């Protein structure tokens, strides 16, 4: 194995770093409160510190971890399924479609009927785009065709999101467009966290259940089948798992881009190329990247006009170009 650290210790390290970043995020904010007060507030007590700790900081830090984990794991699983390092929830348009679903639920009153409808619509949006790609891949579409299809799906979803916000009855809708297109963890509530976390956990569990099959797909579909793998079931689990995880993450934080693309790549030198070995570490790595980016966003601009997705995109886009160049050289 050409890995620098044994997989397990590297995983623990990543998970610890993610929790550390989330802790930094928890202790950081425009209201200056001593860490001890915040901790006391978190586990009981009343007053400003308790409200800030439980209602503002905890949802934010918690969502950073869960959203990052969802995107990282989804990216690793999608790359395994398509056997293509360019696949990820955002490049394939899954994130934008989840955003569209969330916007429709929010601004056309569905989310007011039941808070569960917000993630439900986002998941449906994610499922729709994942299914389209899945059908294209089944029909033998190559790497570039899939990436281009993702670009088309993504552009359409962004356009429809803008259209939906234009016609929304809510006068603030247009102003909030930025949130859905760039992603943000600002002003999230415990309810957001409570809805997103279980769905993301179920989604990642589904992805992990497909891990053996994704490893077998390294040899191609025919060989995977001959190894006793139910390839159809593997595909269904990945599509459903990605839709659940990415849908729930996007419903809570908007379209945070490039995490699913970048994280599995950064981790391959550590964990190797086997898709099964990458899913869980990518979840930890994604959690670390999003939590750290959120800390960075707030350190650069405490007034928080800067969006989380701007930072992840600025980190991710150059990376994407490098990757395409590298793949072209290898081809």
């Amino acid at each position: 194995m050409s890995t620098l650290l044994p997989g397990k210790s590297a995983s623990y390290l990543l998970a610890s770093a993610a929790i550390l970043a989330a802790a930094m995020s928890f202790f950081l904010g425009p209201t200056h409160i001593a860490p001890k007060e915040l901790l006391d507030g978190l586990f009981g007590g009343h007053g400003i510190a308790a409200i800030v700790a439980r209602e503002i900081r905890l949802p934010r830090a918690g969502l950073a971890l869960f959203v990052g984990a969802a995107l990282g794991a989804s990216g690793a699983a999608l790359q395994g399924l398509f056997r293509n390092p360019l696949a990820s929830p955002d490049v394939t348009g899954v994130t934008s479609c989840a955003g569209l679903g969330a916007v429709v639920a929010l601004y056309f009153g569905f989310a007011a009927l039941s808070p569960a409808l917000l993630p439900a619509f986002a998941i449906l949006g994610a499922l729709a785009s994942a299914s389209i790609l899945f059908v294209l891949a089944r029909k033998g579409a190559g790497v570039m065709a899939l990436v281009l299809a993702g670009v088309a799906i993504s552009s359409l979803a962004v356009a429809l999101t803008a259209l939906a916000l234009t016609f929304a009855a809510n006068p603030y809708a247009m102003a909030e467009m930025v949130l859905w297109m760039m992603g943000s963890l600002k002003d999230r509530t415990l309810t957001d966290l409570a809805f997103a976390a279980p769905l993301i956990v179920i989604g990642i569990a589904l992805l992990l259940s497909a891990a053996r099959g994704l490893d077998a797909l390294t040899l191609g579909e025919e060989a995977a089948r001959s190894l006793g793998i139910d390839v159809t079931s593997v595909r269904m689990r990945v599509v459903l798992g990605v839709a659940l995880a990415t849908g729930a993450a996007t419903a809570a934080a908007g379209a945070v881009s490039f995490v699913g693309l970048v994280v599995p790549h950064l981790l391959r030198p550590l964990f190797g190329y086997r898709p099964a070995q990458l899913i869980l570490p990518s979840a930890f790595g994604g959690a670390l990247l999003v939590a750290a980016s959120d800390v960075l966003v707030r350190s650069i601009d405490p007034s928080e006009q800067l969006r989380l997705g701007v930072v992840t995109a600025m980190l991710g886009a150059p990376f994407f170009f490098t990757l395409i160049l590298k793949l072209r050289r290898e081809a």
Partner: protein
Amino acid sequence: MIVFDRVGAGYAGRAALREVSARLVPGKVTGIVGPNGAGKTSLLRAALGLLPHTGKVTVQDRAVEEWSREALARTIAYLPQGGDAHWPVPARDLVTLGRLPHRDRDARAVADALARADAGAFAERRIDELSAGERARVLLARALATQAPVLLADEPAAFLDPAHQLRLMDLLRGEAARGTTVAVTLHDLALASRHCDEVLVLHEGRLAATDLSDETLARVFGIAVLRADGALVPWRLV
């Protein structure tokens, strides 16, 4: 043992196999030959339950449909044509995938398979750093690692240099000598004539012959051959 009883199959309305009755016997290397599109790969896929078919395919005395996916995968190791790895994993990791049907990562079985396929020397190297011939041997080792009583290989000789083609056939003969049912599709009639105990000649989906006589070769392949030392060399069109 695999028995095909009047097996028919097709893709999108085009018949790939018609009424094929044949058997693959333990302890023997069966060569499956025929022109392009004759149904060689389809015959192997029918044995694996990967191709819906009419007639009956029996694997170790049980109809192929009655096998569970994993039990069948432990019984038949399959090396698809032109197989490749989609991620640049180390060769040993790739070979370990052959243990998936057993749900273990038996290091001894993997090392043994690598050694038998003459791939042990580059076990730790990444698959994308290997030559086509070395990759072919790693993929063969992957099939051997399953330690199945049946080994089906689709064109395993395609990317090998002459020495490794001969080594491959020796290896397959060795597997057969251990009691394994070995079937291999080949385009190289010289290899088939020299190294296979049985031959199935397919032509337009039918079993056209079970020999490589001059008459068969003229009728099926449209060629005449030179014969020497028990082997044959394709010589000219007829």
